[in-house]
Each structure stands twice: as structure tokens, then as C-alpha cells.
């Protein structure tokens, strides 16, 4: 027995400690300085989303429709030659964010959605009632998924929002007005505070999403067979013709419009 112990003890010690095993992951939270509360970051990116969506809805959808451009729910189907409606533009951004390493969730819902699948329910519906009353963001911790969640008013900021929703064949409400709270965006993030780098990561994921969806739209245009293709470049539809800004021009405008609010948070 003594021999067995003598033989096995060094072997087990060797097994346990030789080469040390797989290195333990360092807790990044312990070394990174947390600069921003998650609420601050989500407010910042929600503001950027408001600006992006309003610009897309007003200048691309609203302006484009006046020039004869089409926008459709089924814009990605082969037989449909159209661009994404604003709600689907946001859905596209949300999809692209999920492809990134940034754990940011984004959803759009309403109490009177065109598609019932987008109807707010449960806690989201309760909080949306408050948002409609005071238009202030609502925050909660989703214990089920362990994510910090924020909801922001989605206001009808362009004539195209109101007219399209009121006139849509499947609409559930026909008296929307400019400035109405038509729905809410819901955002999720797992951490309660973010480093400067992680905050930039959130912003970057959102902006990359915008770029990707806008580029998808332009890629669809390049495959148009029956419809006249808009000229892509520096001009916007408001120039009075079939014009669309290039992704760089569109994103530069978003950056210009959003920079004050975004920088105010980042440099605080």
C-alpha cells in the first residue's frame, strides 16, 4: 500500500500541475475602466437610430416615392423591384448587428402594428403605455434572458410614416398623425456598464448595420430589370430625379446629423 501511495502521489501531482492546464480567462471587467452606464449607451444609440430612420424615411422613402421609386415589404423577393420600407430597414440593421460580436439586441413594435407579429405584448406593452403618455424611455432588467432592456418612443417623424401606415391594406389604425408615438424600439445589452471601447463597439455595430442594409438596397437596385435604375452618387431624390446617395454620402449625412448628440455622450 505504501508503495502504491509512493508511486501514485507524484503521478497525480504531475497530472494536476505539470504545464499548468488551460490558462484561466481574465475578467476583462476587472481591468477595463467602466465609463458608461448601459442606459446612457442605449439612449445614445437609440438617438442615432432615430436620426438614421428619419433621414431614410424622409429623404429616401418620402423623397424617392415622389420621383416614382417603389418601396415594399417584399423588397428582397426576386420579382419585386423596390426598396425596404423603414420598418424593414430597421429590421435589417437589427439582423446585421446580430452578425457582429456586439451583444446588442434591437426590435421594433407597436400597439397598432401592420403585421400582428410586431405587436407589443406583456411587460413591453405595459411600458409602452407609459411611453405614449410622457415619451420618456423605460428601462428594465429582463431576468429571463439576463439582459438590460430599454424602450424608446418611435415617433412619426416624416409624412411617409403616417401616409404609408394609414393607407396600408393591412393597417390596424388609419388616423396616425405626424408626431404620434407610433411604436417603440426595444434594445437589449447584457452588461450594466460599458467601457469606452465597448461603447464604441455598440455604435459601430449599429452604423455597420445601417451601411450593410443600405448597400443591400443598392445591390437590389443593380438587379432591376423592368424598373429604371436610380443614379447612385452625390445627389438625393430631392434634387428632382431618380437619384440616390451612395452609402458614403448617406452615412456621412447620418454622422453629421447625429454627431452632436453622440459626441455629447462620448465626451461627457
Amino acid at each position, binding site marked *: 500500500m505504501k508503495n502504491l501511495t509512493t508511486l501514485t502521489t507524484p503521478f497525480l501531482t504531475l497530472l*494536476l500541475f505539470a504545464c499548468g492546464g488551460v490558462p484561466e480567462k481574465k475578467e476583462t471587467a476587472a481591468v477595463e475602466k467602466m465609463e458608461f452606464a448601459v442606459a446612457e449607451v442605449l439612449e445614445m444609440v437609440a438617438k442615432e437610430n432615430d436620426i438614421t430612420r428619419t433621414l431614410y424615411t424622409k429623404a429616401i422613402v418620402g423623397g424617392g416615392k415622389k420621383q416614382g421609386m417603389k418601396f415594399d415589404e417584399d423588397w428582397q*423577393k426576386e420579382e419585386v423591384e423596390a426598396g425596404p420600407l423603414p420598418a424593414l430597414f430597421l429590421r435589417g440593421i437589427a439582423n446585421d448587428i446580430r*452578425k457582429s460580436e456586439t451583444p446588442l439586441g434591437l426590435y421594433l413594435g407597436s400597439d397598432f402594428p401592420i403585421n400582428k407579429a410586431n405587436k407589443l405584448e406583456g411587460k413591453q406593452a405595459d411600458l409602452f403605455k407609459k411611453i405614449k403618455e410622457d415619451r420618456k424611455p423605460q428601462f428594465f432588467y429582463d431576468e429571463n434572458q439576463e439582459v438590460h432592456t430599454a424602450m424608446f418612443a418611435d415617433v412619426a417623424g416624416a409624412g411617409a410614416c403616417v401616409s404609408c401606415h394609414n393607407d396600408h391594406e393591412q393597417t390596424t389604425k388609419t388616423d396616425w398623425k405626424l408626431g404620434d408615438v407610433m411604436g417603440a424600439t426595444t434594445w437589449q445589452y447584457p452588461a450594466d456598464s460599458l467601457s469606452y471601447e465597448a461603447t464604441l463597439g455598440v455604435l459601430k455595430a449599429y452604423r455597420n448595420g445601417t451601411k450593410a442594409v443600405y448597400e443591400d438596397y443598392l445591390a437590389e437596385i443593380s438587379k432591376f430589370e423592368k424598373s429604371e435604375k436610380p443614379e447612385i452618387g452625390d445627389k438625393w431624390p430631392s434634387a428632382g430625379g431618380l437619384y440616390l446617395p451612395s452609402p458614403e454620402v448617406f452615412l456621412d449625412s447620418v454622422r453629421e446629423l447625429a454627431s452632436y448628440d453622440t459626441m455629447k455622450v462620448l465626451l461627457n
Partner: protein
Amino acid sequence: MKFEINPLRKRQVLGMLIGTILGVFLFLFLSSEANEEYKSLGPMNTGHEDFSCSSCHSDAEGSLWAQTQSNLQYSIGLRANSVAYGTLDVETKKCLACHERDNDRHPTHRFLEPKYKEAVEKINTASCITCHSEHNAKRLTLSKVDYCMHCHEDLTVKNDPIDISHETLIATEQWDTCLQCHDFHGNHEYKTPSVMKDTLSYEALDIYFNGGKDPYSTKKKFTALSEKEWIEKFLK
């Protein structure tokens, strides 16, 4: 006094020796890429037939020796976390590396929204393997295709284009008819029928779900990455 080894001990040593040799042989045999099929839990699902194990099962960090050490250390409280042994779990993100599409009608992340909590408790559509469990030589591994009911039970369609209205189909709980018109992920290019008798038969769908002919259409907007394309995109 002459020391003699107990014959029982001899048998023990012989047994250990044979066991060790067999163990080493099995380890070497199963470690070889050519013998991957013997480790597989079952035949790969439709479209994945030619995949190598490592396409989905990434190696966990460290050597097997280091992983064994780390987990032994963890088991007696000498380290804070255990480590994955052998390979990493295959998660939804891995599937999406090849199957992610912007036109997905039901992307998995959509079901992470709080409002889907109850539906996800019934069927976890936030995870690919809920419906497409691998190693079953099929496309769909659910036994019933009535899952639309968890989210669409109050659906109404104005100017309903189909002869038997959606409202009637829902009221009579004909949930298995949904897929006769609607492709769940929405990637097929086809015209949706407007009369029930023109919809796809359940038998045709069943064949498709079990790995057979695609009844929706041969035209798809996006095709998933092949193993070669995936390697090109992510590993090079």
C-alpha cells in the same frame, strides 16, 4: 523468504496492460480524420452529408492533457472555472455563419425579444437545433409542424386572399396547413396559392422535411455557404 507475486496480481497487471494497449489503439483510431464516421452520433442532416466534424465542432482551448488537468484542478477547487473538454458546444451562431440571411422571415434572434418569452418556453425558436437537430439525416426533426400556433393564434388578414380564410383555419386549429403555403424561413421564390386545393400536400412537405425533394421551389434567394466557402470566409 522468497518474494512471490500473487497470481491474481499477475492477472491484474495483464488486464491493465491489455486495457492500456486497447485504449491507446482506440484513441489513435478515433483521432484519425479518416475514421470520423465512427465517432458521429448519426448520419448528417440533408445538405451536411460531406461535412467534416471540425466544420461544426471546433477544438476547445488547450490540449486534452491540459483540459484534463484544468478540470481536475477545478474539481478540487484549485481554479475558478472548468474548461470545455475536447470540442466546443455547437451553438446557433455556428449555424448562422453559413445560414444567416437578411431575408429570413423568422431569424433566431427575433425570439430573444421579451414578448416571446412564453412562446420560447414552449418551443425554443431562438435556437436552430430545436427544429434542426443534427445527426438525424433529415431537414426537420420536430415530430409535429403545428408550432405557428404559439405566436400567430390571433392572426387576422384583411381581404384574405385564400378561399378558406386564415381566421377559419386558425379557429379550426389546422396549424399543419400553414407550411402548405408558407415556407418558414421565407427563402424560396414561389407564388403563394390562393385556393387550398392548390397548396402543397402534407405528404410532399413530409418528404421534404425528411430530406427529400423540395416542393416549394428550386429557386432560392440565398444559398447557405458550402464547407469550402465557409473555410474561405472564416478560416483563411
